[in-house]
């Protein structure tokens, strides 16, 4: 474990030199001051003006999560089948913002775009986690079944009751994530909170920014009071009725996009130039097209994405190890502990995309804002989880009195394996985030994908998105191998 940790730390250290960490704004403190004022005097009238965006945010999340739970449950049954596993790995390897950018030209700027953008990657996540939950569940009830009972009744009477609590818990956690995803979809133009957040940020209306953010925190904190299992059906139906008002689907757009627009340019070139829109194929020109994209943009994007990911991975680790004692009962009690816990909740509730956007306003476009944003967000999540694990430790009778000794000689060694497992579990999440932050102007894969989309080159955008997905799947696999080799496990984890 130590060897692996040191290896990753030294990789990150070397890459840090390759990373662009410059603060390009001349006077970041002035802007920070204005943000602070905005935080203190939020303008809640602004929230009233964007009430529809609030509603949209909730509705997209509800519909998205419902569809993905449904599809994910179905796919979870076939998860042993390799093609299904690969398919799920692929759809979850693409960030919901990228899915939104793909769906935007297909279904247009309408609620379905938002719903699909959430539903597709979440389906992959649910399928995987549900399958894992089922695998790790207690199989003993099945032994009590008569020999020829059907698989359906085995599932409903033997498996589901045993895993239901876990499934419910995880799905509820995912709803919170879906709300975050839904909110940031506004940054690419869907009518959710991000749309107005981006506008307010861009124009420095920080009182509006914070009013919207505070209401968003309130929304998430209040979930547990109004989302009850029995009534959630009603919400889902209401949500579908609500979006159905504006939905329009055109099969023509769908086929045009998937059978024409995403074909590599050389295949469409002749047809576009002579006006017939015909498609022709020559492997040579397509090969050169792909090679050219890789050489001019692809490799650069991949390299920057990897640099950012590796630095952030270690940064998150360091932050986790620093913050978890603040929320752990063996180090802190009473009000300070509670305050740190709330602080971590606020940080992890703020979508990393919004954090990055805020830091970009302060420091200008380099990797620094991205590193801090992803590190903070993930550090808050892992700090919370590691703190919880550390709470479960029964200290030995002769535990060191001094907190520093206790940290290094008792608590840390006992939680380190699990901490590392959590960290590697989130490795691919961090990579996805690194890629997506390119949209904000850091030269990771997201930058080139965003450029291709704004040049209206969907073929190139899809090609680069596929590359991003591939990179993500490689990292996911590497992480699994490392976790297996180190024999570390998160057990069942709610950090997805």
């Amino acid at each position: 474990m130590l060897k692996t940790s040191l290896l990753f730390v030294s990789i990150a250290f070397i890459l840090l030199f390759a990373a662009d960490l410059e603060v390009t704004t001349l006077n970041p403190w002035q802007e920070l001051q204005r943000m602070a004022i905005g935080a203190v005097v939020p303008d809640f009238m602004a929230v009233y003006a964007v009430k529809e965006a609030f509603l949209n945010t909730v509705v997209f999340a509800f519909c998205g999560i419902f569809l993905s739970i449904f599809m994910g449950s179905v796919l979870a049954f076939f998860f042993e089948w390799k093609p299904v596993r690969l398919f799920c790995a692929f759809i979850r390897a693409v960030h919901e913002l990228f899915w939104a950018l793909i769906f935007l030209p297909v279904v247009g700027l309408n609620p379905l775009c938002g719903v699909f953008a959430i539903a597709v990657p979440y389906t992959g996540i649910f399928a995987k986690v549900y399958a894992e939950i089922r695998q790790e569940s207690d199989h003993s009830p099945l032994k009590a079944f008569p020999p020829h009972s059907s698989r359906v009744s085995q599932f409903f009477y033997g498996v589901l009751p045993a895993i239901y609590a876990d499934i419910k818990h995880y799905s509820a956690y995912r709803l919170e994530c879906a709300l975050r995803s839904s909110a940031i979809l506004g940054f690419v133009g869907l009518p959710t909170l991000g749309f107005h957040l981006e506008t307010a940020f861009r124009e420095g209306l920080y009182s509006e920014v914070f009013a919207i953010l505070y209401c968003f925190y309130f929304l998430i904190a209040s979930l547990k009071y109004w989302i009850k299992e029995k009534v959630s059906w009603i919400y889902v139906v209401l949500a579908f009725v609500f979006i159905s008002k504006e939905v329009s689907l055109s099969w023509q757009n769908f086929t045009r996009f998937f059978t024409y627009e995403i074909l590599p340019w050389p295949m469409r070139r002749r047809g576009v130039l002579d006006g017939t829109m015909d498609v022709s194929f020559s492997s040579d020109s397509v090969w050169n097209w792909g090679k050219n994209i890789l050489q001019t943009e692809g490799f650069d994007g991949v390299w920057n994405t990897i640099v950012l990911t590796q630095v952030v991975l270690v940064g998150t680790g360091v932050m986790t190890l620093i913050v978890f004692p603040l929320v752990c009962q063996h180090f802190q009690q009473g009000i300070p502990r509670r305050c740190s816990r709330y602080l971590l909740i606020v940080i992890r509730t703020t979508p990393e995309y919004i954090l990055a956007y805020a830091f970009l306003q302060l420091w200008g476009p380099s990797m620094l804002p991205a590193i801090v944003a992803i590190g903070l967000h993930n550090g808050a999540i892992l700090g919370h989880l590691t703190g919880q694990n550390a709470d479960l430790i029964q200290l030995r009778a002769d535990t060191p009195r001094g907190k520093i000794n206790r940290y290094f000689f008792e608590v840390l060694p006992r939680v380190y394996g699990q901490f590392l497992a959590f960290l590697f579990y989130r490795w691919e999440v961090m990579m996805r985030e690194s890629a997506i932050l390119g949209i904000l102007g850091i030269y990771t894969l997201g930058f080139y994908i965003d450029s291709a989309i704004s040049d209206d080159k969907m073929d190139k955008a899809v090609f680069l998105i596929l590359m991003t997905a591939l990179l993500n799947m490689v990292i996911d696999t590497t992480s699994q191998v490392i976790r297996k080799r180190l024999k570390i496990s998160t057990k069942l984890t709610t950090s997805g």
Partner: protein
Amino acid sequence: MKKWISGCFAIILFSTLAQAQTLSFTAIPDQNTARLEQRFGKVAQYLADILKIDVKYIPVKSYSASVNAFKNDQVQLAWFGGLSGVQARRAVAGSQAIAQGEEDQYFVTYLIAHASTGLQRSDAFPKSIAGKTFTFGSKGSTSGRLMPEYYIRQSFDQAPKSIFKRVGFSGDHSKTIALVQSGSYQVGAVNFKVWERELKEGKIDTSQVQVIWKTPTYVDYNWTVRGDVDKKFGKGFTRKLQNALITMHDKTLLDSFPRKQFIKADNSMYAPILETAMNIGIIEK
């Protein structure tokens, strides 16, 4: 549960059929995107009154979103930039540019620089911007990206990324001005209309940021309409729409764009833009 789902889909399908004949339009987000709906809502009302149909404004966040909405027939009419108009008309056969602002016949881009660079206004292209930090506007903007990039490439015979220390895309023209004024970027490219408006509004501190060069003129913004609107809204609709636009004289409406007035335009006027875009690889040839 099956019933629920099929019910939902039935509602979705039904609502698609039930959509009324509404003309939807969008306008590219060129400057501050706040209160877009208020600003363009009035334009929608104006068009509705003259054309006697429902007109709806759909806000978009990016140039590419407006092009996609046009391709999807989600909007039938759009106020595009030069480049986004070309992209849209290339993708939708039969679509036409029907009007442009008076100023769009001879549009220019200003290169602006922060005072600390010591760059002075010149008639010749300021080659000394090499090695500085530089920001374009939006990636899909004609005045904020296409034209300045064209002249930069022409002068240096290299891509911007290898000329400047750092290349950014601010997102819109107001932001470009703000970023150069604050010194976050040393040099930037900005739409002259936005610069002059903000200058008039007193938002620009000329002791911090100055115009150092202006590009030769080119055609820019345009109203573009889909080719199938005559079929949809009745014969002669395109002409009626064109008339409604060029007879728009209410200053509060025109200020949303901001233009003095609209005049007739056609597709051929934008051929140079297409050529330029192909030249620097934004549109493939």
